[in-house]
């Protein structure tokens, strides 16, 4: 799905934990511009955190793209996390609660899906992963 862009998109390359903070910061700013209530700002920051830490942990480097979008007057924030890493062999499995290949909580991907309003994931095994999540202004 393609939505109208309200402002220029923001790209943050991710390759360390400090980049995660930068991406969260930008996301929060963008969502604040859009007039999100403060708890939803935290939600957007959380989604960015989870997707960015997955990039750092599993793909080593990648990029977070942030967009302010408009769908017939409804405004929202789109978070795209994309990398050229190893990809996910079984996306359905990766989306299951508690599934983790690193002994972590397996909370990230399913958590982001539930916190955000829309969620898409596509992964080519060996080629990389792209996750797109949107939150609309309430």
């Amino acid at each position: 799905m393609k939505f109208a862009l309200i402002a220029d998109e923001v790209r943050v390359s991710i390759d360390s934990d400090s980049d995660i903070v930068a991406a969260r910061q930008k996301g929060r700013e963008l969502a604040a511009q859009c007039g999100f209530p403060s708890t939803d700002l935290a939600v957007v920051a959380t989604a960015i955190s989870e997707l960015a830490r997955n990039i750092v942990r599993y793909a080593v480097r990648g990029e977070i793209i942030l967009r302010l979008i408009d769908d017939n007057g409804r405004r929202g924030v789109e978070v795209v996390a994309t990398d050229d890493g190893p990809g996910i062999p079984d996306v359905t499995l990766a989306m299951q609660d508690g599934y983790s290949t690193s002994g972590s909580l397996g909370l990230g991907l399913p958590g982001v899906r539930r916190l955000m309003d829309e969620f898409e994931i596509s992964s080519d095994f060996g080629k990389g992963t792209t996750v797109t999540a949107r939150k609309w202004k309430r």
Partner: protein
Amino acid sequence: MNPELRELADEYDRALEDYLAGRGEAALQEAYELGRKTLKKGLGMLDVATLQQRALLKCLVRARTTKEGTRILRMAQKLFVESLLPFEMSHRRVQEVNTALRESEQRYRNLVDTARDVIYTLSIDGKIKSLNPVFETITGWLRAEWIGKEFSPLVHPDDLPRAVTLLQVVLASRVPPTFELRIRAKSGAYIPGEFTATPQTQDGRVVGVLGVARDITDRKRAEEALRRLNEALEEEVKRIAHALHDEAGQLLASVHIGLADVARDLPPHTSRRLDDVRGLLTKIEEQLRHLSHELRPTILDDLGLQPAIEFLADGVSRRTGLQIVVEGAPGKRMPAPTETALYRIVQEALTNVTKHAQASHVTIRFVRDGRLLRCSIHDNGTGFDVLAVQARRGVRGLGLIGIQERLNAVGGTLNVASAPGKGAELIISVPVEAGGADADPPRR
């Protein structure tokens, strides 16, 4: 405060200090990671609330002005939200799971409430835990009259020992094949039921039995009707066989005597022409006798299945020119219903071969294999598409169905192997008593 929480408390203090010191997003991220860590350790939201309260108090006592106090409060609140977000994610998961569970329970309820079969659960001590509404329709009992009670008074006394054994089997975590029990209705009548029973487990332990019971009154009635019909048919066939053999046979014998009389009074050359007629008459007599024996072969009762089949094969062979070979031996004599069923089945199979197969050769083979007797009837004819014939509902012939029904009655099975151009083979298996392959003396 335990050491685990103590360590987290220090981290929380540091995060709040950092945030107040203007480290912004980095401090918020710290709080978020702290929340994740708390969750991972299996601690709860209230623990985070405790951490936040202590950190906040420590900072607040240092505040010199109201303005500063307000700022601290506002910022601490934002930080608190961050540390709670991991819990929010996991909370939403629980909500989603609960909703799915509720929906699946509702679907299960609907299914159970509208099912036409009885669905029951038992506890390990044989008490009835649940019954669905159709139990009332079928048995006339109210469910409330039985829930919490022992199941045993519901079962026919003769069936009870088996029911108890089966309960033990299921409680030992095994799944028995379907079984039949008669159930006492409120009216006092017994209803035949077909049952399944499976163990209900919780944390790997068997905690009860879940099963389905179907009212098979109609099926039993149909089976009984079919059995009686077959019996009546056998009687009728016997009558016709006797009529052919005795009455027609005797008439023909009188004709013989009459002709012999006449022949004596005729000149030799005319009497020789009469001899030809008498020869034909003898053939007719022989055929009639053979036919009557095939119809109801006393040889089956007297000598057993193998001689009867050989006799039948011989007759068919002579009538049709089909070459028929009987191989192997059915072994020990079997109960009369089984022998009759096998005889009729081979008879119908041979009829099919002559009617449809355009075959030149048939092999009938008996193999005794422990508690199974297998009989195969194999022809080298046109063959047919088995699935297509079986799918031909309504318009299909009664032969193969009749074979199947006869086998049902004696607990046997039928396999048909055939394809166009490949001939046809019927493979019949019936359970028999274990024992040697040698034939017993005639049943008398």
